């Protein structure tokens, strides 16, 4: 009781992370030695010109891809050497994704779209649907749960995506240009949801090239030519 509490490690701690793509013999260094710490509960925006490596970095942070070199500790645990299956499990357990293009399954109800990640966690369909309903309620779509994506507006589709990202109660949500396909009014509604989620304590990392969107973040990071920069 009198002992000092151990310091909470940052949720994301990366050092000298690199990723190079190869187009035949031509190297495309997309991420060139990035150091970064993200604290639990933060709302981070990542801006920078197109092609600066934002998406690539986000994919590395979200275990969607393995870095060529550097170290990555997630919640204090070194996950640099994790294999593909392990990374899939980790994504399923602690990560939520919101994509610019939504990526919803066609001919599948909003409810089942949201429940889908839980199926890979081995949840029973009934329970998965119950949890999916709860998060759809959270994004005010409880009256649209049996609609297929093509029967929903863009804003509604993106809210289904947010619900899908939340359904496994992740420790961190990654968004890649989440408002890129939305008009400004709908974009604001979506950003309000992210603000609210962050107020409730969710850690959010958002890739965007729009300064107005980046303004919502507590920590604004900038990238250029595969590296972090001070000024945007």
């Amino acid at each position, binding site marked *: 009781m009198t002992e000092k509490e151990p310091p909470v490690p940052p949720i994301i701690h990366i050092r000298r992370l690199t990723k190079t793509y190869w187009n035949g013999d031509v190297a495309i260094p997309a991420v060139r030695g990035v150091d970064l710490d993200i604290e639990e509960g933060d709302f981070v925006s990542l801006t920078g010109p197109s092609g600066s490596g934002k998406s690539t970095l986000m994919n590395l942070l979200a275990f969607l891809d393995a870095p060529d070199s550097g170290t990555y500790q997630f919640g204090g645990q070194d996950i640099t050497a994790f294999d593909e299956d392990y990374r899939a499990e980790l994504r*399923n*357990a602690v990560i939520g994704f919101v994509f610019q293009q939504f990526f919803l399954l066609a001919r599948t109800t909003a409810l089942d779209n949201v429940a889908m990640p839980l199926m890979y966690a081995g949840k029973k*369909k009934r329970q998965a649907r119950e949890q999916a309903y709860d998060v759809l309620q959270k994004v005010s779509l409880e009256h649209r749960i049996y609609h297929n994506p093509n029967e929903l507006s863009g804003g509604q589709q993106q809210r289904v995506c947010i619900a899908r990202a939340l359904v496994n109660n992740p420790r961190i949500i990654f968004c890649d240009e989440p408002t890129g396909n939305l008009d400004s009014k709908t974009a604001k509604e979506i950003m309000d949801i992210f603000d609210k989620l962050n107020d409730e304590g969710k850690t959010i990392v958002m890739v965007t090239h729009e300064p107005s969107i980046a303004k919502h973040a507590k920590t604004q990071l900038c990238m250029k030519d595969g590296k972090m920069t001070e000024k945007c």
Partner: protein
Amino acid sequence: MLITHITTSFRQLLANKGKSALTMLGVVIGIGSVIFIMTLGEVAKNFLLSQVTQFGTNVIEVAGSGEFGPLGDSDPVAITDDDIKELKDSNLLPEITALSAGYTTAKTAEYNGENYSLSIFGDWPDYFAINNYQLLAGRFFTESEVHNGAKVVVIGNTFAEDVFETYDNAVGKQISIDGTTFKIVGVVEEPAAMSGFIQQIIVYAPLTTVRRLYAPAEQQDEVIYILIEFAQGTDSVSFERRLKYELERITGAEEGTEPFLILSRTQFIEIFDTILLAIQLFVSAIAGISLFVGGIGIMNIMLVTVNERTKEIGLRKAVGAKNQSILIQFLIESIVLTTVGGIFGIIFGLGLSAFAVFAVNLALPAWDVSFVFVPLAPILACGVSITTGIIFGLYPALKASKLHPIESLRYE
């Protein structure tokens, strides 16, 4: 998860009804032919079995010299009436319960200005008993008529119907066979197989009459076939061996010349089984080719599906699907495709079989063929369908499972 995969597969299938139907066609035809040949094989076997049991299965037929001739190139060996008597009384063959031996030849008959080609069998009255022939009108000829060489004949029901309309009407009529006038004394029910398919008229007359009229001088005391009925429960292999030994001893045939063709009725079934197996193998080969072509089609549509749904695969992987989950998902889709095809194939095959049975009954009512459901056939068909789905779905599913999540999401 499994149920989710299956429902997804059906949704996918229904979303591309036309394409799916075309793809499944090969499987439908392949499975349909498997069902068809299995069912019809069983139908035919049952029919044949009923025919043979109608005749009596405890009967052995021996063909000697003359028209039926021995197989092979050995010299024909004559069987005489004395040989038959000796055979009947043989101590080595106590199981013989009835025996008839006869002479047969093909002749032309004439009635009311019409000519008919027919086979005339000369035999003893026992012939009818051994073959289990049922009398429809009149009577069989008698032993004394055989001794007297009476010019009487017994005819089959088809011939009676065709020429005299009713059975009773036939009895007492005179017909001319090869210029000799015979009196019809009876009408018998022929085995169904003989009346429909083998369009051959057979009439039965006393042995002595037939021989005297139609056999060459040196064959007047010879027979060319023997029908032997033996007691139920006889060891037929041993009986046949002893019969062969006795025949060769009595006729004085040279050793090792195989002058007789000994056919038991059960052997007919074995011969038929061999033929049926050959046909079944042939149709199975066709089914196999059809399934192979169908399988290639399945593989093709699955490759197209994987390609079209690259983004979906990327998304599933992004939210935590492992390679194995994706593999299983697409394997199940391919299995659902082939199984649905297989079910249609089963329906198609059963329908076709039922129609074939119906058509045979329509054309040959006397055969009275009945439809047989072979429970093994649909089980086998389902197994084959699932196996086809696995074999031809494996490559596309493996391909899907190995896709990289990011590249799949970026795929255009």
